[in-house]
């Protein structure tokens, strides 16, 4: 679930508020998005993909964490913006789609790729 909006990275562009399919965010008084409805987060990582400054972190757990993770540590591990980099979004990057040649799946599972 969405755990963190990194305040000093956020440029208040509202993109996450717009793009979140389950309407998790609200615009805060200072323009920085608030995680207003964390329980509605479906852990789809789309907000991270749309954030132009890598200011969001979605933890892989589909339930809220007891404590949000440490931002410095996430940054050091390359996890802030990691998904956006992998799909090749952002200036100067090659779209991940261009390189997406999947593995040859066993014949039976090719038909149920899901």
């Amino acid at each position, binding site marked *: 679930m969405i755990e963190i909006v990194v305040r000093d990275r956020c440029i208040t562009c509202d993109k996450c508020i717009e793009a979140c399919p389950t309407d998790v965010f609200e615009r805060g008084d200072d323009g920085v998005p608030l995680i207003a409805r964390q329980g509605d987060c479906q852990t789809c990582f789309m907000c991270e993909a749309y954030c132009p400054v890598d200011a969001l972190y979605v933890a892989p757990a589909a339930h809220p964490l007891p404590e949000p993770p440490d931002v410095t540590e996430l940054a050091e591990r390359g996890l802030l913006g990691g998904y956006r980099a992998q799909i090749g979004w952002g200036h100067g990057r090659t779209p991940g789609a261009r390189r997406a040649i999947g*593995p040859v799946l066993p014949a039976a599972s090719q038909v149920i790729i*899901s």
Partner: protein
Amino acid sequence: MTDLDVTADVLVAGGGPAGAWAAIKAAEAGADVTLVDKGYLGTSGATAAAGTGVWYVDPDPAAREEAMTSREALGGYLADRSWMARVLDQTYANMNELAEVSRYPFPVGEDGHQIRRGLQGPEYMRRMRIRARRSGVRVLDHSPVTELLVDAEGAVAGAAGYRRQHGRSYRVRAGAVVLATGGCAFLSKALGCDVNTGDGALFAAETGAVMSGMEFSNAYAIAPEFTSVTKTAFYSYATFYHADGSVLEGAGSLRGRSLIARALLSERVFCRLDRAGEEIRQAMRLAQPNFFLPFDRQGIDPFAELFPVTLLAEGTVRGTGGIRLTGYDCATSVAGLYAAGDAATREPICGGFTGGGSHNAAWAMSSGTWAGQAAARHARTLGARAARRAVSGAGGAGLRPTGAERAGHREIVEAVQAEVLPYEKNYLRHGDRLAPALASLDETWKRARHGLRADGADVVRARSAAAMAANARWMYASALARTESRGMHKREDHPCSDPAQHHRLISGGLDEVWVAPETGRTLAAAS
């Protein structure tokens, strides 16, 4: 706040691939189109968050024949060759449009040609949004439909809904409506599926439309425990284990998935992708970066370490049941109403087997195209008359309670989930468990119909809760009626298929649910 009240030739409900294609094709046919989505056109639904194979087959007769034959048996011979052929043609055309019109960056193979057999969800849907807007489609994001509008003759004439980020309602009167609202995954948190609560099926039923194939609704996907990332195909490289590290014999992503479900009833199940060589590992990472997010972020090496897995319900998203279509134009039995994508039954191309992945992707673009074009034609025949019709709201449960006792959307959702999520009820089906589950769902429906009501944005939640209850009842009524095993529908008490039940099951009704064999269709013979 002032409500928004507008007109359009065609209203498309849903901003996944089917809705986007429907809107674009209706606009290209000359219609004035409004698309409304519960979330955001570009990120909403099961496709945007994932990657998917696409049923893209070169127009070589032998290849096409092979593509059609390969799944007929799995689908219990309920698919239809003429539909399959048309979907293969249309998908081929649409994928080529993606390359040429939307400049989708397909990978290039060693022969220098683009490989057009798969799509990455974020890239695909971002480009679909751009194309929709360039086609002149008016897009209302975060604007879920709450009910359809009907004219005096009962024809669908638009929809009403709620703009969540504006805190006000809206109404779009239209000549025709395309429902592309997705399937129903019961808020299971399967990747991208929480917007898919079967709303379209409820709206359609409230205007008199019927469902088909709702017994094919027991899809479950493998995901690392406590996460959302479903990518069952990659688990074909997995070995499954008990907690003590011994192999769970016979378990697998394809044939042995029910064994995993059975084991999960009494123990944790672990997994390791130990059958993937280095080259495959690299390819998996390039094809599906999101697959690795749970592992990378939890510091797990899925190729070397055991990790616990779960199965997440995907209901009719990866099942095949949905709104019944009356023809290739994706019309429903209600005038002015069309259905596309996972909101519609995918039996025409999948029969009773999962449509997950490549088939659903092909179906979304094909049915979306046809529904959009047909809706535009329908609106044109009505002309200016369409906007002058007196309309009324068709919505019932969650909008217009019939009793005084209040019910909340949360309790309805929980009551439905308690019947449809457990493996022992929905996956490992048995009449002895399905019957009481249906009885309980009937009671839940009554509670919702009598007392479910909400204000403001919660109207959307109330309607989603009602939709889940309705979908669940069509599912289990159909599953009880099919006293055999066919396609993905496996009955422990009827383990064999019964030649006398080689037909589709249609279903419908809200206060009284009914199921009946479809008549008058010739299906492929079981060989």
